[in-house]
């Protein structure tokens, strides 16, 4: 955070809040925009990865000699080509991933831990030769028993993935290695007393299966390294600086020797905040002395990138007859795939963060299983836990014959109340979201046979993070904003708008680029709903610096004191008659004389943005369920959420709609299916069924604006909250439609039919 930044909130805007066309839009509608796989370099080779066919096995030996001998193969890499790392190293990455885990995920070391785990890689002059070469690599495996289910992995007799993984968070570190990487206890107040005070107690177990972010663009990159070790990497990513940090560490390079350029990105949602192909691509480029291009097939994306966790949960909640929550007890078990993670505690906290309840007792377990290493999917950990809590709340509403919005109003957190994770809330918009939901016309829509309405709420705290922005003024009076946060949802437009707003110039005189890692200071990944908040803050600060410089230049030219000038409406003028009779100079006028008055005019800002504001949301789903087939039709869907201040309302609405539909897909159909052999059965879009246009109605949205005092324009991040309410909104709607309480996600047609019949 710029420690002395003036955060006096702005409330009247010229550009912010309008809906101009985005600067990168033309290229995207004409096919000109270049994504990860759209790059080619002269002499480029094609890289492919050999992947484990087993869910769990020891790698006894790898013989690459025949592959290396094949004409057209220029390099083959295995675990031997990557240095061992200190197991305690972590990246300054968002989720603070353990770099040794990332390194072992990128290329298996002594064991393969999931079907699809990378074992070796080749670079050849054509894809056809690369494919042939993979078949010539001989790997001897000692197949081991595997486990893919979170509950089974927690049992004492489960096959253990890592013999150096001992459950953290227990009073005494255990002696025996386990698949439970972490235990977190969350406890406040006195649940026994709370349950004693309850008039009604509801208890239920829930299961959610793993989903994939489903970005349409598979992972892709092109790497080239000179013989003296200077590397270029082109990659589709949510964070090219994080890619730099991770690749440099995994390969033993200086960060300054690796220049990473972020291509346009075809979706990420959290799944592109880490590395999979990139260190391998660099290793192949280094060994072959040629540029190497690597892309994942769709099959590989499902098997070997980072889906989200599957979970098993249990909630017990007590309420008084008038709907006041008195206690909540829960058990949350989350599997992170083959490497340790820490999300169950965080997810559990988010589930009750919306409600004023002092008696809470949660047991949270993070578990490893023989599945791909999990990555974030929008708000990591929260959709599952909120599904459980919001479903129980709905069951309570039914039993008390209480309106679900009233039930939430009764318990909603407000400004000044303590949050479940400790600090008191500043201004927040949960009540406002509930009110906006209640007032919405969708709530009056009549429901017919087999139709029902489900409501659920969600919350994500958001964060700021390290951000570097540079704003430069051209001598013809235009502005260039250099950002280090890849644009995944239209953020370039938002930054241009904020710069235009601050500088008092028109939006069409501002351009933005996403600069490479050698051009700016560090930037945390685009994720965590942080870019509009942090890059916005940095853009505003950089713009304010430009104004100060321009005032200074004008004052000097006029021969008056710097504090005798003011900046207003895009121009600088003397502050009063005493300051002399000088005609005002516009932004363009000062820009034109930059060279003669000291040099180019620019502002830059490198911050660790804090003060992020939490974003609450409420969703309403109207569904119809066919009792014979279990098919669910979404009739109506409403997403209400607090954006603090919507910089570009189209893009805020877009986040609400996109996240809601991802949640609808997860609620109705999307799941990772494993058989006894531990292999993923549905690694393709046909059987991993995401929503298509004909599955859905329009997604209605309401942008609530309760400004966040931590941002100069009141912005709250919005990208993650939208995926949190849909699982329960859909679950509650379907449960009510069939008059059976469902507790497993996804609610695919066979499961619904079983529930109706059973």
């Amino acid at each position, binding site marked *: 955070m710029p420690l002395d930044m003036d955060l006096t909130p702005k409330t009247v805007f010229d550009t912010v809040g309008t*809906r101009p*066309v*985005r600067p*990168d*839009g*033309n290229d*995207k*509608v*004409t*096919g*000109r*925009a*270049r*994504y990860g*796989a*759209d790059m*080619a370099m002269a002499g480029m080779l094609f890289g492919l990865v050999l992947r484990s066919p087993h869910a769990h096995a020891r790698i006894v030996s790898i013989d690459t000699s025949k592959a290396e001998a094949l004409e057209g193969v220029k390099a083959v890499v295995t675990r031997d080509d990557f240095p061992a790392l200190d197991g305690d190293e972590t990246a300054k990455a968002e989720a603070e991933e353990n770099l040794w885990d990332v390194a072992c995920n990128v290329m298996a070391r002594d064991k393969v831990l999931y079907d699809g785990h990378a074992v070796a890689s080749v670079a050849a002059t*054509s894809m*056809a030769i690369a494919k042939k070469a993979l078949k010539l690599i001989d790997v001897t495996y000692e197949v081991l028993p595997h486990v893919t289910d979170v509950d089974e992995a927690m049992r004492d007799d489960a096959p253990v993935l890592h013999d150096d993984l001992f459950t953290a968070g227990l009073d005494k570190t255990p002696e025996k290695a386990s698949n439970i990487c972490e235990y977190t206890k969350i406890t406040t107040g006195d649940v026994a007393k709370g349950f004693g005070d309850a008039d009604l107690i509801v208890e239920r177990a829930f299961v959610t299966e793993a989903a994939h*972010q*489903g*970005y*349409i*663009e*598979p992972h892709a990159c092109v790497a080239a390294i000179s013989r003296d070790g200077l590397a270029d990497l082109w990659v589709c990513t949510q964070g090219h600086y994080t890619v730099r940090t991770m690749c440099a560490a995994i390969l033993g390079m200086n960060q300054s020797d690796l220049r990473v350029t972020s291509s*346009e*990105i*075809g*979706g*990420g*949602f959290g799944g592109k905040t880490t590395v999979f192909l990139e260190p391998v691509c660099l290793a192949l480029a280094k060994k072959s002395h040629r540029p190497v291009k690597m*892309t994942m*097939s*769709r099959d590989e994306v499902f098997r070997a990138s980072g889906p989200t966790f599957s979970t098993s949960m249990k909630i017990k909640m007590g309420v008084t007859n008038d709907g006041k929550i008195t206690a909540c007890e829960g058990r949350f078990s989350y599997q992170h795939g083959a490497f340790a993670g820490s999300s169950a505690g965080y997810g559990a906290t988010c589930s009750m963060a919306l409600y004023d309840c002092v008696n809470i007792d949660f047991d949270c377990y993070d578990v490893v299983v023989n599945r791909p290493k999990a990555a974030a999917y929008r708000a990591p950990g929260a959709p599952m836990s909120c599904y459980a809590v919001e479903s129980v709340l709905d069951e309570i509403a039914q039993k008390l014959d209480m309106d679900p919005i009233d039930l939430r109003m009764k318990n909603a957190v407000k400004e000044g109340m303590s949050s479940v994770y400790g600090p008191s809330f500043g201004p927040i918009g949960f009540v406002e979201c509930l009110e906006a939901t209640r007032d919405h016309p969708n709530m009056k829509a009549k429901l017919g046979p087999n139709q029902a309405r489900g409501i659920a709420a969600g919350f994500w705290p958001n964060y700021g993070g390290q951000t570097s922005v540079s704003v430069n003024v051209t001598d013809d009076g235009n502005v260039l904003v250099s950002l280090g946060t890849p644009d*995944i*949802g*239209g953020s370039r437009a938002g930054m241009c708008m904020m710069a235009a707003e601050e500088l008092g110039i028109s939006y069409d005189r501002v351009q933005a680029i996403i600069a490479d890692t050698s051009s700016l200071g560090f930037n945390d990944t685009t994720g965590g709903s942080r870019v509009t908040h942090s890059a916005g803050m940095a853009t505003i600060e950089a713009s304010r610096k430009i104004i100060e410089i321009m005032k200074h230049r004008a004052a000097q030219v006029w021969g008056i004191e710097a504090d005798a000038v003011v900046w207003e409406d895009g121009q600088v003028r003397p502050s009063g008659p005493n300051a002399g009779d000088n005609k005002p100079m516009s932004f363009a006028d000062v820009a034109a004389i930059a060279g003669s008055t000291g040099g180019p005019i620019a502002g830059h800002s490198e911050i660790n943005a804090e003060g992020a504001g939490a974003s609450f949301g409420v969703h309403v789903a109207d569904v119809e369920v066919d009792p014979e087939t279990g098919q669910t039709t979404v009739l109506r869907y409403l997403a209400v959420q607090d954006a603090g201040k919507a910089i*570009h309302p*189209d*893009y805020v*609405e*877009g986040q609400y*709609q*996109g996240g*809601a*539909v*991802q949640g609808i897909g997860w609620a109705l159909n999307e799941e990772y299916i494993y058989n006894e052999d531990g292999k993923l059965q549905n690694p*393709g*879009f*046909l059987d991993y069924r*995401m*929503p*298509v*246009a*004909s*599955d*859905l109605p*329009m*997604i209605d949205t309401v942008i609530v604006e309760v400004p966040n005092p931590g941002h100069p324009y009141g912005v709250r991040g919005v990208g993650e909250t939208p995926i949190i309410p849909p699982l329960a909104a859909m679950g509650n709607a379907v449960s009510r439609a069939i008059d059976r309480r469902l507790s497993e996600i996804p609610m695919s047609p066979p499961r619904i039919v079983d529930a109706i019949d059973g």
Partner: protein
Amino acid sequence: MSRTHITTTVNGDTVEFLCDPQETLLDALRDHLGLTGSKEGCASGDCGACSVMLDGRLVCSCLVLAAESVGRKVETIEGMADGDDLHPLQQKFLEMGALQCGICTPGFLVAAKDLLERNADPSETEIRYWLAGNLCRCTGYDKIIRAVMETAADMRGA
């Protein structure tokens, strides 16, 4: 293995390239002709990101062999704008925020253009079913459908 010499027409231009027999039209467009506007999302015809027109028919170019394009007419996203002028669909997508990451956008535009050439007044349902072969993960489809509806209305002069 020797490669095949292909001559075909892409966006009105006669083009030639060499390809392996198993290469798809998508591979050829992207790797041999530098037309990277059509995207590979799945290589199995499930996502529509590779949508092109082949002799006036909407196809997934990942399911067409490059060799099948001989003597036929291929139209891709790169041919949609007319000189300096964007096609009304392209313009409307921009104005209505009907794209976020944009990777699916070329496929949607090619498919939607075909729809509007066949049916100048499609209903919302007709649009949704026509575009059901194009996956989008960012937008939830709402703004895309609205953009197509409004473009249809504009083009009808309604």
